[in-house]
């Protein structure tokens, strides 16, 4: 670190620029990751909060709970336990019965009030639904101005539904969730009474059972992958983040390459004087590590500050453990950039400075 620290101190502008570039690229990676995670979360938050591992649903629904319909006979054939819950899901328009607030495109989730999803609902405001025509809604409704006891008109159902509670992390397929009863789901979706649910979710895998012809079992990832646009969106972000990582590697490599080439004559003198190449290589490695850590720490702080300043409507989710892993990834990628300068240093021939 002896040479590394002194060089940085002497070449402040040069190293400030390098750190700034690293910080900006890392910041961009963090913001894109937060956006990717935020959007993915809006697709899957509710399912994740239910800790679902497998789902039994109509096999013709293309793994979409919103499209799935089960008859009572289908439902009865699916084994139940304390870790299963019967649900009905339907995309809906939620309108303010009094016309004061904007209409919200949402996902209605009908629950059996005695099963684990309904029992585990923890409203951050209000209470759980106890009767038909009572709903607990995602706190996203608050952003549209809705409050407790407001009345909603939901989907194809007649009559109104009273908001009795708000819950967090309740989004599915980008829409905020409206929790109600399975009976209300039938009304909201406008299905005939022979169709009683969309599917059965299970916190474990389903044990083998005699599937009715109309029923299939899928795992959680299949459900997510079949959500419209979910895979395309995630792949797009993954490519963008991957390209940024490659760009950051190239930029760091180019910077370090130019710096090392400029230093070659004095490095050759040091080699001639018997300064071990290991000492010079260690210094270059430590210097790279230092500027990467400072750059990434700056962008990490900037990302955290951004997360506090952004309005709630921006779908970003800053997951600290994930950002920490990504920081480590950026640092390791950047260290790869120090390999070329290290090779240059190890190949410097001290003879080049004799007889100049």
């Amino acid at each position, binding site marked *: 670190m*002896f*040479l590394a620290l*002194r*060089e940085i*101190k*002497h*070449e402040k502008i040069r190293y400030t620029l390098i750190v700034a570039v690293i910080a900006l690229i890392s910041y961009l990676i963090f913001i894109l990751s937060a956006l990717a995670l935020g959007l993915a979360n809006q697709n899957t938050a509710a399912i994740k909060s239910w800790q679902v591992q497998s789902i039994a649903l109509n096999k013709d629904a293309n793994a979409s709970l919103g499209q799935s319909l089960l008859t009572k006979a289908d439902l009865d054939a699916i084994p139940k336990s304390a870790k299963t819950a019967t649900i009905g899901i339907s995309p809906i328009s939620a309108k303010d019965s009094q016309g004061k607030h904007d209409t919200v495109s949402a996902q209605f989730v009908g629950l059996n009030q005695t099963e684990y999803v309904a029992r585990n609902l923890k409203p951050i405001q209000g209470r759980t639904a106890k009767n038909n025509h009572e709903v607990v809604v995602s706190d996203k409704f608050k952003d549209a101005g809705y409050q407790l006891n407001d009345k909603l008109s939901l989907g194809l159902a007649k009559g109104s539904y009273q908001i009795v509670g708000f819950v967090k992390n309740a989004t599915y397929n980008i829409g905020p969730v409206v929790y109600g009863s399975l009976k209300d789901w039938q009304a909201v979706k406008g299905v005939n009474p022979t169709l009683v649910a969309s599917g059965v979710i299970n916190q474990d895998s389903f044990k083998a059972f005699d599937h009715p012809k109309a029923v299939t079992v899928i795992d959680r990832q299949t459900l997510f992958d079949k959500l419209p646009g979910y895979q395309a969106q995630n792949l797009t972000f993954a490519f963008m983040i991957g390209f940024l990582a490659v760009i950051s590697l190239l930029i760091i490599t180019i910077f370090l390459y130019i710096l090392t080439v400029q230093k070659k*004559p*004095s490095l*050759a*003198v*040091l*080699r*001639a*004087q*018997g*300064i*071990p*190449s290991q*000492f010079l290589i260690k210094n270059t490695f430590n210097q790279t590590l230092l500027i990467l850590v400072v750059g990434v720490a700056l962008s990490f702080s900037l990302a955290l500050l951004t997360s506090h300043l952004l309005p709630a409507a921006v779908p970003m989710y800053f997951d600290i453990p994930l950002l920490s892993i990504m920081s480590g990834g950026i640092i390791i990628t950047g260290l790869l950039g120090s390999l070329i300068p290290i090779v240059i240093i190890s190949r410097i021939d*001290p*003879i080049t*400075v*004799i*007889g*100049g």
Partner: protein
Amino acid sequence: MSVLQLTDVSKRFGSGTSQVTALKDVNFTADNGELVLIVGPSGSGKSTFLTILGGLQQPTSGQVKIQNQAIHQLSKRALEKIRLNEIGFVLQAYNLVPYLTVTDQFKLVDQVKKSANLPTETFQALLNELGIEPLLKKYPDELSGGQAQRVAIARALYANPNIILADEPTAALDTARVEEVGRMFAHIAHQQKKAVIVVTHDTRLETYADKIYNITDGKLSQVK
């Protein structure tokens, strides 16, 4: 006993019709307390001679001994160690690390050579003798050519080597500075009992030399 000894050393580059002989059957010794000048025209083999003396490259044939140790079978790392401990290099340019202050140039030696450097009192006396004391906080680009060369000499001496190898150390200096450097090398050789070998074009240094060798077309001959 000679601190440096070259016996029948030849160095050839290339092969066949394009082969060039840079050194031909060179025999050379240097002892502690001697200032030896190696002079000769450009392309005569002076630099090859110096790099072989300093263990920076191996001869094609013949034997090189530094402190009575034959170096032709030593590893790269062992040669680095010999250069660090036994030899102080003073070069024409890029002598000093540009981003280190004069003080840090010496501290760098401490970083890689933890022992046997000059004791504080001796080092302090050297700084006074070379007039470096007021320059300690300066960077190389704030020094004149003469000041930079004095610092380079002090740094080479700080590691307390027995041998000083200098390559054109007065190339960029005016006559007054050349005389200053000449006196300094003679002083180092005679007072500190080092073997100082200077490769140069500069005939102004001849006054201070105990021995002078001439290299022409790779052949070494003593002229003083």
